[in-house]
């Protein structure tokens, strides 16, 4: 795939995300314990850590599903800790889920259209008539999605296919497409290449880089595939047992003794191999 796009989408400016002293608890489990995370506008930042480190919990707190016990989440300096999850969409925060959360009964196209829900305005009476404003809005939406998202991610051949019957890799891509349709200023991806083969992984990695470069979106991602993480990210933050144990450039993090210990700690963790082979995944 060689994305040579003529019309780059309308770009809202990339967002900056600052998370400070974030703590979260489930009963006795401290899922997050005072973590700090700073994501520069336009960067690709990776959040990594062994299983159960609290990465997904951090995502859930940042996107507003969990109310953190302490700490603040700031988007471009504005405190959004108390904003309900559904209102964060409008602020430009989009995400995908570790275990794909698509609308299974709908086609790829409808799933992507739903991404723009919060930006549309037509109401129920317009919907019944499908005339005037509603019709115009729906036509513009379709054209825009075709141009900005479907072409961009090469989903043309499956646009009218129900997502439930797509293979895993494509579903992940559709989820990315839906998030892109939200015209995000910051895109949060929870394990975007989990379960993908090498080819699909490279494809996805390129897509992420393209999104950052062409759309000018900040990207925050959680990923276990170290090769990919080290290749595409500008900044890496490492969690273990709900605490931040390191942060810095990929090279700094790779050589950080605490990080190595965290990954080796769980007696023969298979992730060690991943960490060692980090430089192998030649992407982009």
């Amino acid at each position, binding site marked *: 795939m060689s994305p040579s796009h003529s019309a780059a989408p309308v770009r809202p400016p990339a967002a900056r995300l600052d998370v400070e002293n974030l703590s979260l608890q489930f009963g006795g489990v401290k899922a997050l314990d005072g973590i700090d995370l700073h994501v520069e506008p336009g960067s690709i930042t990776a959040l990594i850590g062994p299983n159960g480190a609290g990465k997904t919990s951090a995502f859930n707190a940042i*996107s507003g*599903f969990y109310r953190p016990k302490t700490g603040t989440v700031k988007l471009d300096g504005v405190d959004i800790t108390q904003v309900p*999850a*559904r*209102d*964060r*969409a*409008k602020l430009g925060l*989009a*995400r995908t*889920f570790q275990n794909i*959360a*698509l*609308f*299974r*009964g*709908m086609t790829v196209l*409808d799933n992507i*259209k*739903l*991404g723009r*829900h*919060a930006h*549309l305005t*037509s*109401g*129920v009476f*317009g*919907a*019944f*008539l*499908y005339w005037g404003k*509603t019709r115009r*809005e*729906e*036509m513009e939406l*379709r*054209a825009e999605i*075709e141009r900005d998202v479907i072409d961009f991610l090469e989903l*043309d*051949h499956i*646009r*009218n*296919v129900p997502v439930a019957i797509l293979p895993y890799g494509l579903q992940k891509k559709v989820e990315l497409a*839906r998030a892109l349709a*939200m015209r995000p200023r910051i895109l949060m991806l929870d394990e975007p290449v989990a379960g993908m083969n090498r080819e699909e992984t490279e494809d996805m990695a390129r897509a992420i880089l393209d999104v950052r470069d062409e759309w000018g979106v900040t990207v925050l991602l959680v990923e276990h595939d170290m090769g990919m993480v080290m290749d595409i990210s500008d900044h890496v933050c490492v969690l273990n047992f709900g605490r931040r144990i390191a942060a810095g450039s990929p090279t700094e993090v790779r050589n950080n003794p605490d990080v190595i210990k965290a990954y080796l700690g769980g007696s023969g963790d298979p992730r060690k191999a991943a960490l060692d082979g980090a430089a192998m995944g030649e992407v982009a």
Partner: protein
Amino acid sequence: MRVGTAKESYAADEGLFKTDTQKVWFGLLLAGLVLFPLNGSNYWMFLAVLVMINVISTTGLNILTGYTGQVSLGHAAFMAVGAYTVAFFDGRFDTPVLLNLVLAGAVAAGIGYLVGLPSLRIKGLYLAIATLAAAVILGFVFLNWTPVTGGLRGLNVPTATIAGIELATPDRLYWLVMPITVIMVLAAKNLFRSRVGRAFIAIRDRDISAEIIGISLLKYKLMSFAISSFYAGVAGGLWAYLFRVVTPESFPALASIFFLAAVIVGGAGTIVGGIFGAVFMTLIPEFLKLSATALVPWFPDASIYLAPVRNIIFGLLIIGFLIFEPMGLAEMWRRTRRYFALWPFRT
């Protein structure tokens, strides 16, 4: 498959009917609806009107249960609200028929909205139970708010009169009910081509991701409740004009199960499904009646077994479709069509 349409024709691709075949089918259906009264049989006209009323109501329940994923065990109670509203306004104030029908829908929608309110706190089957509770409470109101509902004896409904024409018989009522049914079904179809309808489906399929893309769950659930009840209310209003009397017995709890069955058997979450389901479920008792009459020479009491057999069949249809064909008749229809689209080149 008819995909990969040229990008210039989004308008066609986004059309109410995506292909010419669909347009032809719809044209045939309309022609059939216009020509149907030529059969001249009062029985068939009555049945046609009843079927269409049930189509409206089933479509309403399909919007809530099939598309939004909220099971309602009180749909018939909303029909009753519509029927009482018509009986009340037409009987007391002699207001125009169309206004009464709109009022029937609106009052039912308002109550539906209230019944949906617990969805702020509860979801899934708990909400279904709340609708059951609401239906019981509404039943109490019908029975005991005598000044308005006529209590146990209920209300008589005047003949529907439009522009001086009395729609006293089913063959006349047909011309009121048929256009309303067509309009309401098309409106429902439109709903799911746009933002609002997509939000409903999103809530059904995955409510957390609905939230992440900025859909207010409460707002759209309430909207779905209101729309669904609006359909039920209008259907109930038409029902009142057909049967001319409304009592607390008119819409028993089993009627709610009837509509749920229609949605499941027809195909939850598709508009044709609602139509198929309503037609099928309305005709089954008639078919049974005919069979019973035919059996009388051999089994003189065949007719007393009618009601129980009907109940058994309704129940078995619900169970059978859920287990063997959860997408309902609509899916069977789709498969048949595909088979014949390829026939005789099927490999």
